[in-house]
């Protein structure tokens, strides 16, 4: 039973079993007008499972007739997403789990960063939600480190939403003090608008992307609490001005924290792990108090 949305009363997620949000004619991209008429298992790759989302709008026409009138709606277009996000947030707070939403362009090194982070966090409990349009490649890479991971495939969708994440959380061992990493679809635009219930958005930016990237895609960097400037080991080879990267990040977000990191060489990784651990501890204290 979905405890949040009540969809499909007997949906359970088990290893090797999935939750297909594809062929049953509902979409999870803002409309949430779902019927969940037919959940079906699908072929899950590897030891875990994938969630598939992404079809067009439901074909519903509305009967009834009335006189012409004005209806005040005053409703946020993403209201449904925000309700699911709030539910996720309450659940994470009650559990004392610290969740970060990792956002970036495709190819910035999110998954490599995550694999290295997992090895540095050693014995800390953690879990990973991987979002991509297709394939379970990233979840497979995470599982190879020994960490539990759920892959969400968004189909044609360009971002994760809070409803997908709420379901994925049901499949993960979330214990008190755990880190939850949500690796969003590689996209610097849409994920900015979709709250997943996370504690912080962390934007990853690699040094090959150009110093003006924060200015080109300001919304994401405004929404992020921390920016990780990744692949700094490549900086000497690509005429890049790291200070200009930071200046542009602070121009779109005066409050943003910035860490210079190379997931490949390990440079700066200690600061990142400290940042995570400090925030997780604060969250646990908050959950207790």
């Amino acid at each position, binding site marked *: 039973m979905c405890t949040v949305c009540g969809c499909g009363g007997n949906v359970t997620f088990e290893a090797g079993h999935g939750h297909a949000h594809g062929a049953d004619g509902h979409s999870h991209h*803002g409309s949430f007008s779902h019927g969940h008429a037919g959940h079906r298992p699908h072929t899950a790759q590897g030891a875990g499972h994938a969630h598939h989302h992404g079809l067009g709008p439901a074909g519903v026409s509305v009967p009834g007739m009335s006189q012409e*009138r004005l209806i005040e709606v005053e409703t946020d277009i993403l209201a449904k997403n925000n309700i699911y996000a709030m539910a996720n947030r309450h659940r994470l707070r009650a559990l004392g789990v610290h969740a970060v939403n990792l956002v970036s362009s495709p190819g910035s090194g999110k998954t490599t960063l995550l694999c290295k982070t997992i090895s540095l966090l050693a014995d800390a409990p953690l879990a990973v939600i991987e979002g991509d349009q297709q394939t379970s490649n990233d979840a497979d890479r995470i599982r190879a480190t020994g960490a539990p991971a759920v892959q969400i495939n968004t189909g044609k969708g360009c971002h994760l939403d809070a409803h997908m994440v709420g379901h994925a959380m049901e499949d993960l061992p979330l214990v008190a003090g755990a880190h939850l990493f949500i690796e969003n679809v590689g996209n610097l635009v*849409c994920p900015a608008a979709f709250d997943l219930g996370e504690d912080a958005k962390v934007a990853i930016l690699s040094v090959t992307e150009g110093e003006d990237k924060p200015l080109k895609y300001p919304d994401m960097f405004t929404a992020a609490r921390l920016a990780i400037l990744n692949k700094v080991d490549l900086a000497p080879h690509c005429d890049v001005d790291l200070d200009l990267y930071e200046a542009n990040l602070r121009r779109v977000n*005066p409050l943003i924290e910035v860490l210079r990191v190379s997931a490949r060489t390990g440079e700066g990784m200690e600061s990142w792990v400290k940042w995570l651990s400090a925030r997780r501890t604060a969250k646990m204290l908050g959950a207790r108090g």
Partner: protein
Amino acid sequence: MHEMSLCEGIRGIVEDQARRHGFAAVKVLRLEIGRFAGVEKAALGFAFDVVMRGSAAEGARLEILDLPGRALCYDCGEEAVIEDRFDPCPLCGGGRLMPVGGDEMRIKDMEVQ
């Protein structure tokens, strides 16, 4: 940005409202969109026509009301209305501004029958 997703959100709300208020058709649907919401109006209009097909809002006229962008200046500590995301603070000329409004994406009202 994700104008198609937004229209699917609008469609969901229209369907909820149709069930609640028992109307058959939406004639006009008014949105309030903030300057910094990242919404491309032309793309939204195109997606709206496509996504509303078969719903009560099929053929409805979409009207978009702009809401101003507001930002807090970290130099003078005041909040001000700015036109462009990268405008300096109109009060002190500072460049350290954090948006605090203008990201709204709301359905304001609907004329229905």
